[in-house]
């Protein structure tokens, strides 16, 4: 991946709070030479030749860390996730908005409008259903806890045009919890299971695609990463 390592933009990439971190790798369904990566806070980069050359792919992604709010690169992007069916459709949770791309990062459409905030870390896509994705919005960049102190997962079934809160079994009062980008995962089963962990040491899970949730563990250290595997 020298093409990315030696990219002319690289000296100007700034670290996010977790360091300068390449956290998401998305591989196109039909073309393994087509990849998209997300770096905090360099933005999204794309290759069509298996990693030899890379171009920034941040058109439409808003940024507040510089005077230019639509720069070519430098956006703080928090997580990217591929649609399970449409190979060119990617969901992205950024530092200042939530997005969808229908052309594998060529352009991004803001899909934040019916979410309760613009800030959050993870995004997870459904294992089989196109246009279905899940996010966990936080109050703001400054106040990094679940919006209005209610622990809610938001689900879209129409590629981000609308979002519905999923709350059954999740605390809806006094829940000042933070969920980081790697702390939300699906298990790929049918129906899809979903699991997330909090910085305050709880893990919640749903075996019915987010309709109902259960507290699976508590009093853990800060949960940085959650991964789910199906044992058959």
């Amino acid at each position, binding site marked *: 991946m020298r093409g990315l390592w030696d990219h002319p933009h690289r000296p100007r990439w700034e670290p*996010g709070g977790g360091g300068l971190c390449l956290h998401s790798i998305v591989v196109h369904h039909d073309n393994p030479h087509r990849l998209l990566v997300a770096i905090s806070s360099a933005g999204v980069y794309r290759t069509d030749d298996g990693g030899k050359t890379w171009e920034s792919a941040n058109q439409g992604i808003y940024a507040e860390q510089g*005077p230019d709010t639509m720069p070519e690169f430098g956006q703080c992007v928090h997580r990217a996730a591929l649609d399970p069916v449409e190979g060119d459709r990617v969901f992205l949770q950024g530092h200042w908005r939530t997005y969808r791309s229908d052309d594998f990062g060529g352009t991004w459409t803001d899909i934040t409008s019916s979410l309760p905030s613009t800030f959050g870390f993870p995004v997870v896509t459904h294992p089989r259903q196109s246009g279905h994705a899940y996010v966990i919005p936080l109050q703001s960049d400054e106040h990094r806890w679940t919006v209005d102190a209610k622990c809610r997962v938001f689900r879209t079934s129409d590629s981000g045009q609308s979002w519905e809160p999923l709350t059954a079994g999740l605390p809806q009062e006094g829940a000042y919890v933070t969920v980081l980008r790697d702390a939300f995962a699906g298990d790929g089963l049918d129906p899809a299971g979903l699991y997330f962990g909090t910085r305050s040491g709880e893990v919640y899970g749903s075996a019915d695609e987010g309709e109902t949730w259960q507290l699976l563990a508590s009093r853990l250290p800060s949960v940085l990463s959650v991964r789910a595997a199906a044992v058959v």
Partner: protein
Amino acid sequence: MRVTVVVPRALRRFADGESRVELTLPVTGEATVEAVLAALAERHPGVRDRTVDERGEVRRHVNVFVEDESIRHADGLATPVRHGTEITILPAVSGGAD
């Protein structure tokens, strides 16, 4: 020479609510970001103190731009400014645990 300092939302309460502070420096030709921050401190010391630390260095989670260029990628506080330059202070995205 006159320059403009753009103050981020979080620091506006230290600038009497202003988002843009116009400063006149008693020089002609060229000055530095450091001189601009010194002039800013005379009017709004709270903004300057939250931009640079007690050693006079830009705080870790703050970025200062001369026009669109971060001074970290230029000459730091010695980065030159000219008449009409816009200097922007912004919190860095590295400020939180992301």
